[in-house]
């Protein structure tokens, strides 16, 4: 599918390419394909995506119009030669109250059983739209409307590493101890960001995440396996 895109200069050395202003899996697909084309065909750039844009940055952007023409030509003419592979990752989460510190509050506030919240949260596949804000934080879309809980008005200063949260229509996992305003419903023992690995995040935009419930005991077990580099996540190719 072809979208009407806009190209804007953003800062001295970057070009912002924008898609229609909605969160949509088809748009994400188009962004990822274009990103892959740019990666293969345009030199000396870095490129990142969000829900509906790509930011292409250069060491120095000498000829803005010429670069835009090159980018436009790439979008209209070329097709991706090799098919991109996307995976669904199965991520273990312990939802017990020691970890899901906001579950009791959410139960009262929204009159929704804790068990129901967990059941809904583990029943769907979530699309990874982009990684950002802080290193390794995944914005996962596709959350069921029943568990859209608005962000807290004031962020908590010390959200624990691995905390699984809900922020509005998105869910995500805090990859490090950090401040954060999402409602915490569980914790995953999996390590999602490793600055010494290449790439530092093994899940990429366009991949999916599916959560499954584990006990406190399993959480401990998996955590020690993760620490000794001895834990392998289950993944499944989704676009065969």
């Amino acid at each position: 599918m072809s979208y009407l895109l806009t190209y804007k200069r953003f800062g001295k050395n970057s070009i912002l390419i924008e898609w229609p202003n909605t969160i949509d899996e088809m748009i994400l697909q188009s962004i990822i394909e274009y990103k892959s084309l740019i990666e293969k065909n345009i030199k000396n750039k870095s490129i990142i995506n969000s829900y509906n844009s790509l930011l292409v940055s250069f060491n120095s952007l000498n000829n803005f119009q010429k670069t835009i023409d090159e980018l436009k030509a790439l979008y209209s003419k070329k097709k991706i030669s090799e098919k991109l592979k996307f995976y669904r990752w199965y991520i273990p989460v312990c939802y017990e109250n020691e970890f899901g510190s906001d579950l009791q509050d959410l139960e009262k506030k929204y009159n929704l059983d804790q068990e129901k919240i967990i059941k809904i949260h583990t029943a769907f596949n979530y699309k990874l739209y982009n990684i950002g804000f802080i290193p390794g934080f995944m914005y996962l879309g596709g959350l069921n409307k029943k568990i859209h809980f608005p962000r807290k008005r004031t962020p908590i200063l010390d959200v624990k590493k691995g905390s699984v949260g809900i922020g509005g229509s998105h869910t995500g996992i805090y990859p490090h101890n950090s401040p954060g305003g999402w409602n915490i419903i569980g914790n995953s023992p999996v390590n999602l960001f490793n600055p010494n690995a290449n790439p530092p995040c093994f899940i990429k935009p366009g991949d999916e995440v599916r959560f499954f419930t584990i006990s406190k005991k399993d959480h401990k077990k998996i955590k020690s396996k993760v620490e000794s580099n001895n834990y392998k996540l289950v993944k499944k190719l989704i676009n065969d």
Partner: protein
Amino acid sequence: MIEVISSGLYSSIQDLGRFNYEEFGVPNSGNMDKFSSILCNNLLKNKDSDAVMEITMTGPKLLFKNRTKICITGADLSPKINNGSIEMNKVHNIHEEDVLNFGKLNYGYRTYLAVKGGFITDKIMGSRSMYYPITEKQKLKNGEVLFTKKVKTYDNHSNKYVFDYDEHFKKKIIYVYPGPEFNKLNKKQIVNLTSSEFTISNNNNRMAYQLNELFQNDIDPIISSLVLSGTVQLTPSGKLIILMRDNQTCGGYPRILQLSEESINRLSQKHAGKKIKFQIIDY
């Protein structure tokens, strides 16, 4: 080797930054005022990319365990070797057991200390710039030890920067390009933005500078999108936030302006209470 006897308010090791990892949410980090840090390295005949110490407002106390050469640029924090004042923007020979400390802040906000050959700290994702969780620490701690290269011979003549770069610390003007959502501002807002002075709030650090004055805002938030260091965001409550070197990589506030690189350097030398004025420039 250098022992950090006391680290000061916020001192960290920084180089030119960490690039090509933005897609994983990793900020560029690096020296807040690159003009001063590059000047510091140049005077020592280091590479521009050598790691320097960035010192904020209150100086550390450092004990040198071996001979080296140093240079100090940026904010004037009354530097002293063994309690004797030394000149800024000039190369100094350092002997074993020399102690470097600092005093009163005379101008600016961030001081750069370079040693011959640069600080040799962990290089992660292509950079030594401290930023947690990429590096283990966000800033230097009391008692830690920093490695440097040994210097065999001293210079007889010392390099000194003779040009005045006062303007860099004194000028209020911050040059900005229109940001991606600039066209959502109305005429009155644009006039307001470029004719009023804004004050830097207490809420300022390596991640972002917030401004005190509230700005009339009726622009809706956007779907979380990409930002850069130097991006000026406008919050629903009318606060202006200028992202700096340790910036988040995405955000949902309209991006109304984008600072020039030179102006990010200039802003880095201003602390809470200082006034700035935006001036829009063309690409």
